């Protein structure tokens, strides 16, 4: 487990070797509202960082900065040695994310979506991987459904599945436990454990203390 520093910033120790993500002096404001102040973080391969804090503390803002969907006011975010840029294909190849802007083609089925993602990221045995993921996330019954017909829970599971059917160096997950039932949460905990073993880094915001306790190596408390 990493050490917590004053002001909500955490630096994972032994950074440098296998470093996937480095955040240094990150600041982000919305008008007069200072959401993120001097956030520092180093995340290595196989580490999971849980971002915790009350609603409105800036967890999602931090995740969106890391995914490159919003630009920070100051500071740097370095992913595998290069500055994060959402439009950079290297960033898109390395980062699999589930943020609050999740969306799908309305006219492709669940299975087609997953297979498309797998093919585009050159996943070995894409059909097999997709079948496994459909079973693991209890989406077999919805494999031929188009996204507008899915329940909010199913949409969440499809978004998560999209991250796990493709190669990734960093997973950025905004409250991944949201809308998952007990079995789904159990699967998520196990899957995140597997991610660690396989060497992916995970940055996730969560309100679920059980999940955080079970998987997090580093905690970044924001706004507490």
């Amino acid at each position: 487990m990493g050490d917590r520093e004053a002001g909500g910033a955490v630096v994972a120790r032994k950074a440098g070797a296998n470093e996937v993500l480095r955040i240094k002096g990150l600041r982000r404001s919305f008008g007069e509202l200072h959401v993120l102040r001097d956030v520092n973080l180093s995340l290595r391969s196989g580490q999971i960082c849980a971002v915790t804090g009350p609603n409105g503390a800036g967890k999602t803002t931090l995740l969106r900065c890391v995914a490159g969907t919003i630009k920070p006011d100051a500071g740097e975010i370095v992913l595998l040695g290069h500055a994060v840029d959402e439009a950079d294909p290297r960033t898109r190849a390395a980062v699999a994310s589930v943020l609050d802007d999740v969306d799908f083609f309305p006219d492709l089925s669940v299975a087609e979506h997953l297979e498309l993602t797998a093919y585009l990221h050159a996943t070995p045995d894409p059909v097999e991987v997709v079948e496994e993921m459909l079973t693991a996330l209890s989406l077999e019954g919805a494999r031929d459904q188009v996204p507008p017909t899915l329940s909010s829970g199913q949409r969440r599971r499809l978004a998560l599945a999209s991250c796990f059917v493709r190669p990734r160096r960093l997973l950025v997950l905004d409250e991944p436990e949201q809308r998952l039932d007990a079995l789904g949460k159990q699967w998520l905990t196990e899957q995140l454990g597997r991610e660690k073993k396989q060497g992916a880094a995970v940055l996730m915001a969560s309100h679920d203390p059980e999940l955080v306790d079970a998987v997090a190596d580093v905690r970044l408390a924001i706004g507490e």
Partner: protein
Amino acid sequence: MSELTVPSVRDLRQALRHNRRAHSDRTLGDLLTDVYLLAFLVVLYGGAGAYSLRRHLSQPLPAPEGTEASRAWLIVALLVALGAVAWRGLRLVGPLVTTPAVQAWIISSPISRRDWLITPLWWLSVIAGAAGAVVGAAAAWAGLTPQFALAALAGAGAGVVLAALAVRSQADSRVRTRRFTVADGVLAGTVVLVGAAVADATARVRLPFPPVPAFVAALVGVAAAAVAVRLAIQGLVRLDRTALAGGAQVAGAAMSAAVMLDPALLSGVVAASRWRRMGRVHSGHWLPGPPAWVLIQADLRRQWRRRADLFIWAALILLPYAVAVFAPPAVGSARIIAAFVATDRLAGGLRMVVRTPALRRALGGTDASLHWSHLAVPAIGLAVWWAATLPAGGVPAAPVVSALLALGVLGAVYRTATRKPMSYDGGIADSPFGPVPVNLLRQTVRGPDVVAVLVLIGLFTSHLGG
């Protein structure tokens, strides 16, 4: 236990109006100002419109020699197509739409549903009748009949019939789940009719147009309207919450799209509603290959599933041929505009990718590679469409100019599809016509501006190269 008295709709409306007034801080002065402004606009624009209409009606559209019957058939085909499109539009929004508060009143209270809904039904019939009258008069002006008043009356009747039957259909839960409707069949039939009329004009096979007296059409229209309204009134009691709420979302989105000048606000809701109705599709695998190849396969498959767009693309092939019968000098311009509209129907994938950052992140690659991959299907569609409409004429004789125009159309489609969500910042510029929101205007015309330039180029170069 005392007996409950159900208030009449009239009493309830009065009570609600009274409460609204009590909570409103709108003064009589505000009301009179609004009425004055409205009256001013109606007189100004209505007067100009009426003057312009009278001028046009006094000068019927000249027809090329010997094409009167073909023109009449084409007008009928266009009227039928317009009716089918209007039907689909009406059914998409309801056509009877109520606010959630009204839904609560008529579903959850013992108030008479029929009495409450009959007022919006009358308003709907009046509006549909007025719209139908305009269409009828326009058809008469285009050459269908010299009797404008009777044509307008027949059109009004047809408008009321459509609206009233749409209300009756709204009340029928069996109709809601159908994938293909009568309107789809009518639209397909229209295409055949246009094709026949064009073939008639081109091959000079004279198909005589039956001489139906205008007063008979008007009489049938009025009688049918009366029967249809009666059927609609009978169906009002069966309108449930699903029927009333279903279209309210679409109507709200249409209003937002019009106010915010952003058609995507409506198209997203319509697409989601269509796919919710569709529910499931037959999943297939992708053929392995480079990312661009897989994306093109996905775009093709999505296109195949959006058959309505494909149908419109194909139906528009007939348009330049129809214009060649009506007004030969306008074929070139009509062809460019129709090519743009037809190809734009195939650019749904591009629009989706441009507007959805989450999809771009999930699909990977560069923005440019995603854009190009999703432009392949529209480009192929345009090439086929352009080739299929060459015999209609109006093409610049120089092949290079023709090819450049086609490329320009593709550019216009790309420009339209890559329009970012509307931004409402930006300054207002003073002009002789009043203040103009420059940034808003620039975003709204992104795409069609290129089409306008292409039309001008087409007009200037039509005589080049022989």
